[in-house]
């Protein structure tokens, strides 16, 4: 693991912190200004009895909000989340996976485009060629991912082909114990992907770990012309990382694992090094989103580097302000590195203490 002890890295980390603090001040000013903020946060500030614009001057000050309760994002009216300063813009609403109860919603205007344009900068052009067409083998419907990947392809000059895939149906099948039906549905999705790959010249793709496995059981992706695979949506273990690189894809296809969700955007992976032993290390898109690893029993306490804790997300964009949101994931805290001079997360996996098991389907 790299550490923040080298002088140049230390300076970068400090600069990053200062940039983050400045960004926090800008975002708090936007979201709590009666002219630009959204009804939810303006009402919140009124009831809380303190003015964040006066009392929040740094990222650390966001602790004053306490942990954000995700139930606030469930149900309507979703317009309570639309900042007045952006009310003139066309609004999208995206939902989370829906694997547990009423899905959480996030309204957006441009965030999904901005996030994926930033992510695009991390993709190597030789494996994700500019102008190449994409296959989006992932969830359709009210998912941000669907439009985001299409925008990624367009941003890089390509066209995205996509499939019909309803992950909620798969989750229902699995919960009912209809495993065979779920397998058939997965095959239905793979069949759509195979048709696209055979009919069009596709060089890049997004897919989920399970769908990548299923697709590679049917086709040699290198022979099919694929040069780069961007993978995400569900948990990836180090062993899956190794298996994907060594056996599913081979040495000539670039594998880009990512960690993301509708609320955060996209955390990119650090290029793997032998000493990582296939650990997947992600860094969030600071300052637009920050990931921290907090103590299981005290969510205000950040754990030490290399220690395990729960993932805590803070989203800081003009469209969305979500401070201190406890994710359904756990991981190890990763030190800043030269490329990403801020905290990262290692080996993200479902939160082990949850009593209610989460069903993850094909998506």
């Amino acid at each position, binding site marked *: 693991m790299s550490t923040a002890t080298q002088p140049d890295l230390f300076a970068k980390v400090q600069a990053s912190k200062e940039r983050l603090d400045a960004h926090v001040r800008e975002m708090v000013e936007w979201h709590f200004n009666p002219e630009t903020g959204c009804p939810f946060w303006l009402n919140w500030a009124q009831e809380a009895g303190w003015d964040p614009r006066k009392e929040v001057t740094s990222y650390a000050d966001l602790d004053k909000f306490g942990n954000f309760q995700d139930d606030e994002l469930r149900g309507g009216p979703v317009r309570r989340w639309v900042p007045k300063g952006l009310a003139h813009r066309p609004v999208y609403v995206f939902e989370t996976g829906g694997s547990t109860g009423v899905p959480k919603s996030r309204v957006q205007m441009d965030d999904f485009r901005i996030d994926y344009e930033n992510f695009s900068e991390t993709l190597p052009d030789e494996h994700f060629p500019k102008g190449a067409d994409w296959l989006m083998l992932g969830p359709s419907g009210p998912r941000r991912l669907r439009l985001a990947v299409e925008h990624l392809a367009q941003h890089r000059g390509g066209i995205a082909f996509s499939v019909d895939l309803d992950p909620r149906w798969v989750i229902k099948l699995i919960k009912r*114990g209809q*495993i065979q039906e779920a*397998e058939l549905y997965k095959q239905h999705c793979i069949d759509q992907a195979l048709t696209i790959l055979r009919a069009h010249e596709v060089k890049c793709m997004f897919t989920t*770990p*399970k769908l990548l*496995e299923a697709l*590679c*059981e049917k086709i040699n992706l290198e022979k099919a012309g694929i040069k780069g695979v961007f993978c995400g949506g569900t948990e990836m*273990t*180090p*062993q*899956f*990382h*190794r*298996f994907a690189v060594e*056996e*599913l894809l081979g040495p000539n296809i670039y594998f880009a694992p990512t960690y993301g969700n509708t609320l955060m955007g996209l955390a990119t992976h650090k290029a793997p090094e032998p000493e990582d*032993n*296939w650990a997947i290390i992600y860094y969030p898109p600071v300052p637009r989103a920050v990931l921290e690893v907090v103590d299981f029993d005290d969510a205000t306490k950040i754990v030490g580097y290399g220690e395990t804790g729960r993932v805590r997300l803070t989203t800081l964009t003009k469209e969305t302000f979500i401070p201190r949101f406890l994710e359904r994931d756990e991981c190890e805290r990763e030190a800043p590195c030269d490329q990403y001079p801020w905290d990262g997360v290692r080996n993200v996996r479902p939160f082990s203490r949850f009593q209610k098991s989460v069903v993850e389907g094909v998506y």
Partner: protein
Amino acid sequence: MLHLPILRYGKPYRSVDTATAVHYRTRQPFVEASQANAGLIRRDLARQHEAAAILQGFTTRELIAMAGKASGYFLNDTLPLGDSAQSPQEFVEAVSATTGLPWVMVRRNMAKIAGVLASMETVLMGLTRLPNLDMLDSGVGDIDGRALSFFPRGDSMGVILPSNSPGVHSLWAPAIALKTPLILKPGSSELWTPYRIIQAYVKAGVPAEVFGYYPTSHAGGGEILRGTGRGMLFGDVAAAKAWSGDPRIEIHGPGYSKIILADDGAAGWEKYLDLMVDSVSNNSGRSCVNCSSIWTTGDGRALAEALAERLARIKPTAEDDPNAAVAPLANPDVAKRISAMVDSELDGGAEDLCAKVRGSGRVAEWDGCTYLLPSVIHVPSKEHSLANREFGYPHVSVVQVEPHDLPECLGPTLVCTALTNDKRLHQRLLANPHIGRLNLGPISTMKISWDQPHEGNLFDHLYSRRAFQAVPELVG
């Protein structure tokens, strides 16, 4: 720490994901096993037909001979174990360390497995009832002039193994002689025995490429069962229920094995006490062939009191004690949960007579370990919730019933030992579809005869018969 790799058609593979099994006493990690991800298993299963083709290249006689050699190697030789090697005594100590079984019980199970390997011809004759095992090579033959043909139902058999006791491995071990490759998911704390059986077979000449050994998650186990042509599952009630509708899978859940005493047997129960004690407590009550309930038309209370007096003598001893009769549980919390479950149902007149004789509860701490000491539950009626239960330690319920209740009141029963000379009851037992193995007379529920199908017929599971006709010049 010792590491056990995945075996991908015999080839060791060290996974990035690992799981550790702890020593039952120290609770410290004892062995680490590579964990197979589900996709890796599915990818390997796409090649199972290649493994099947390899075994088809041997004659049954050759495979039987190799099984005979493997028996000796399993019992007596130092065999590969990961990057190191393991002597027979080290094997005994390792199984004991992660399962809690005393050495003497591990050795008994070891002898059972070696026995089935050594007796492979007898086993196959018992399973197939063929007069000539060469028919297994040609797939065709005749019995008394009647044509016979059969074919394998799948390219391999996937087996989801338990952690409670190594004896169950004797059930799948004959698959190799039946030319069926094995895809094994070992129990999380009994990683040792399947690995050693594979190594013994390989040393005896069976190609390593016909064995898959995949320590994996519950989901990985599901991939094995879904992806292999035939399957075998050892598990609890919930696991068994999940696969109960799949005819490809032979399920080994709780056995609910029983002893019934009627008429003269019920009147003379005292002379069967040794048999009852053995059936209940052998192998520390961990086997599905252990007797978990006794049904008598005589004085149930008197029988239960006498049995309680005998079983209450069982005490924890050192793991190397040759007379050890009860095993500690590898996880102390499990012992407490099971005991609490039994206690919660001790109402409506049910009583643990063993605890009464001992003067103490069934959870015992000894030498840093947690034990479940025997329990003999006298239940007031056949409808009581504890009348027909199985808990994986020396536990037996004694139920007094009316003669006309038998055998319909028994329900699913893996092994039934009937102690009675009542011929009409014999007939009713023989006609009962819920009894897996019927012992008429004083035979322990634990006793297995290798020339009989046991806990399902492996040959019928792996092969199917077909109609067959041919002109004479086309069959040799």
